[in-house]
């Protein structure tokens, strides 16, 4: 197994138990190692993507735009400009002579066609090299069209996805503070770091509405430009701590003194604590009582249902590999509710603190890994005899090829996994994959049954 690990990456993997905790992370990916990471552009694109009434124009050759066309499950309750893929589709002559004029004309054309509330212009690798002045073109078009036109400095090579989050936050920060603050309640918040996959933010907003809390801006799920403009009027920024929108919260704290709390909407405890934390912040007994009532009511339906799944899933083993580590914390707890053990957990862009916390909440022997790759992941899955792997599209075929169940917890998914209802869906999805009879047919199980002998095989087939 260890032969599958690059010498240079040895310190990015920690096995809990034997040695004191130590892990290296936040490094550039190792060349040739088939990292599961994406790029700066990807980071910016995923954060801003759900803003549904803005034009998102990718300034670059066609690839960057076409691979991000309608890929997220981020829903909108109104306009759906975010689901279109706009590009300047740079050609050889643009690369030689510069793409500024093409960018200008494309912006004018798209703004004229769709009448958006704003336009985001994403820089790509090549734009960073040919030196188009995005800032100047955006400024000119903003003056001509009278809408905000915001450059996003997301050249792919300038770091990893986290650098892209920052670039996106900086672009959004230009909008914040430009809107009207009339009629905002004292008990008001912005929701940061939820992207309304499968309608999750609507669920979260409903909980807050039931607590009497007004949501000023969704950042960015089902997002609207005008809401973001007045986000500085909210009394609190509630940040789902993926890091994707943390930079914006920090910038708002500095400029507008908006306090920040970090939450997670995945899993039972984290969801409940998120609601309590908001009530605590406002020091409002009535609000806290309402939050408790929500949690009580939701759990009354959820817990008995979960029991059924728990009975079937107890003792099964799970592996987790996600983009940001925050999701992994909640997933570890969620699996515990299902009676399952997490035997491997990793992320593309976690920090040392993230990994320290992950190894603290998992059992001895658990593998904690940073910026992994198919070689390692496949060997970990086999070594740990995992029953279900949680990840995104790039992890899915690794699991399936080996005959292991899979749960998509990435931004392409179409199932709601946040909130109490999301915990139910999560349990159903895990159950629906782990308990499928197809695993009895895959080579992994067949070879096990061959080793066990015929009578044992028959017993397994019947079970």
């Amino acid at each position, binding site marked *: 197994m260890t032969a599958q690990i*690059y010498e240079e990456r040895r310190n990015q993997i920690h096995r809990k138990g034997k040695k004191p905790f130590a892990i290296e992370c936040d490094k550039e*990916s190792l060349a040739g190692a088939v*990292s599961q990471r994406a790029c700066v552009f990807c980071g910016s694109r995923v954060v801003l993507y759900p803003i549904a009434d803005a034009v998102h124009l990718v300034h670059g050759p066609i*690839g960057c735009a*076409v691979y991000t066309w309608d890929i997220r499950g981020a829903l909108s309750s109104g306009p759906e400009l975010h689901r279109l893929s706009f590009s300047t589709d740079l050609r050889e002559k643009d690369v030689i002579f510069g793409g500024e004029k093409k960018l200008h004309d494309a912006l004018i054309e798209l703004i004229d066609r769709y009448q958006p509330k704003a336009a985001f212009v994403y820089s790509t690798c090549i734009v*960073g090299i040919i030196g188009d002045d995005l800032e100047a073109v955006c400024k000119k078009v903003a003056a001509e069209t009278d809408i905000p036109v915001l450059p996003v400095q997301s050249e792919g*090579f300038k770091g990893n996805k986290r650098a892209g989050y920052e670039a996106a936050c900086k672009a959004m920060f230009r909008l914040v503070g430009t809107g009207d603050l009339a009629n905002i309640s004292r008990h008001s918040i912005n929701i940061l770091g939820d992207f309304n996959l499968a309608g999750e933010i609507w669920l979260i907003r409903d909980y807050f509405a039931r607590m009497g809390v007004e949501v000023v801006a969704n950042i960015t799920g089902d997002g609207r430009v005008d809401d973001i403009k007045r986000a500085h009027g909210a009394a609190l920024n509630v940040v789902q701590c993926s890091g994707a929108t943390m930079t914006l919260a920090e910038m708002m704290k500095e400029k507008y003194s908006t306090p920040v709390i970090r939450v997670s909407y995945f899993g039972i405890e984290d969801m409940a604590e998120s609601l309590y934390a908001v009530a605590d912040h406002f020091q409002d007994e009535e609000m806290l009582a309402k939050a408790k009532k929500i949690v009580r009511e939701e759990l009354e339906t959820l817990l008995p249902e979960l029991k059924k799944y728990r009975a079937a899933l107890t003792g099964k083993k799970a592996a987790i590999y996600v983009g940001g580590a925050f999701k992994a914390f909640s997933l570890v707890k969620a699996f515990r509710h299902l009676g399952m053990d997490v035997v491997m957990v990793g992320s593309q862009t976690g920090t040392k603190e993230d990994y320290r916390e992950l190894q603290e909440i998992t059992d001895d022997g658990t593998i904690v890994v940073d910026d992994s790759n198919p070689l390692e992941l496949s060997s970990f899955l086999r070594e740990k005899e995992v029953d279900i792997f949680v990840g995104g599209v790039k992890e899915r075929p690794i699991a399936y090829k080996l005959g292991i169940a899979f749960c998509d917890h990435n931004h392409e998914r179409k199932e709601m996994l946040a909130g109490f209802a999301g915990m139910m869906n999560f349990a159903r999805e895990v159950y629906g994959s782990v308990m499928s009879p197809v695993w009895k047919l895959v080579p992994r199980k067949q070879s096990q049954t061959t080793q066990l002998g015929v009578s044992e095989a028959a017993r397994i087939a019947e079970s």
Partner: protein
Amino acid sequence: MNTDTNINNENDTHTPPPSPKSPRPVGGRGRLSRYVSTTNACKLCKPLGACLAFRGIEGTVPYLHGSQGCATYMRRYIISHFNEPIDIASSSLGEKNAIYGGGANLKQGLKNVTDKYRPKMVGIATTCLTETIGDDLNMIVHEYLKEAGETAEAPILVKVSTPSYSGTHMEGFHAAVLSAVETLCRKTLANDRVNILPGFLSPADLRYLKEVMAEFDLEATILPDISETLDGPALDEYQLIPEGGTPIEEIRTMGGAEATIEFGSTISPKESGGEYLEKTYGVENHRLTMPVGVGATDRFFALLETLSGQEIPERYVKARGRLIDSLVDGHKYIFGKRAVLYGEEDLVVGLAGFLAEIGVQPVLCASGGKSGRLREKVLEATNGLCEVDPEAYEDIDFHEIEARAAELEPDLIIGHSKGYALARKLSIPLIRVGFPIHDRVGGQRILHIGHEGAQQLFDLIANAMIQVKQDRSPVGYSYM
């Protein structure tokens, strides 16, 4: 292939954005409005095609010399169609590499891939970034080979220049094939083999092709061959490089083959592996339209008869007979129906020919490719069979396709998954073919070519039209 009709779709959550207030046609061509910006492109980028082609060569790891995102995005896109792992290595260039050059990362990447994957070959494709910063791939690779020294494990390195700004995924695909041939082919003794350069076909198509060649007793080198590498069985152990792909030893002897068959009529001669083999080694190149439909398949089989000196095997005579019989049985359901086609140029040409011969009007043939030959080849393939000559547009995006399609009032759409929004908007069926199929299972199992492929396609088209009629009928007969 699957269909969607959405006849009674009342779900309005997918309301289209406001229609163009005042479209500004730029360089208006015929009846089509053209724009400066690209909205919903009908093409992919050049390195993606190169990765797909390299994936079809035995023991090969596709490698992108660029930043990490390119490899990851392409992997995700390819995985979502094939539902198979595809490891694409990357130089993972960072900011300092963009300034000082990516040579060191490329060398380290090659070393790491060699150590862990033990490939027979690494197919190195460049990206926008490395082309623009001016990395000299030949020099870097030359240095690498010198530094690494001669070892038994050293993989063959094939290089191809694929900046996304100079073509679509198909140019990248053909460039990778050509580069593999140029790098690997040696002057060899004449042999009886036949080279097939199939272009971008599905694994099911390639399996069919192999069967056909075997039935004709022809030994074929099919390059590339993704039939196993992108459609493999469930496994007990993860294979870093899946089995299958065109054997490297076979590629080496392509120069001695009896003939080359190259599917695709829009490939530029200078990008064609077949032309290269003819010029360099005197292997006669037979360029055929992709064998989609009766006529194109007949021409392919006629050539195989000549090359093999054998008559068409009985099973294919029978398959053809059944196909013609079914076309007769179902002709009324589809006659005069109007179809919008889009996708890679060679697939569009093949489909247009098939539709024309069964009485469907391909009213709009569209591609994001830009060979300069699409219109001519579509007209050749439809050969006067259409009441009105099809409109054919290159370098087009889905926004432009949608606008023109709405005016042409089509009955069905034929193409990959990205036309679903258009099908939904017009409430007409989408027959899924080609790549990518991202909204159905089984994209890798779609058979497009030969009599069997035509049969499956015909059944889908006819049944889609029958379903529309049935769904719209106030009576709803179960007996059509």
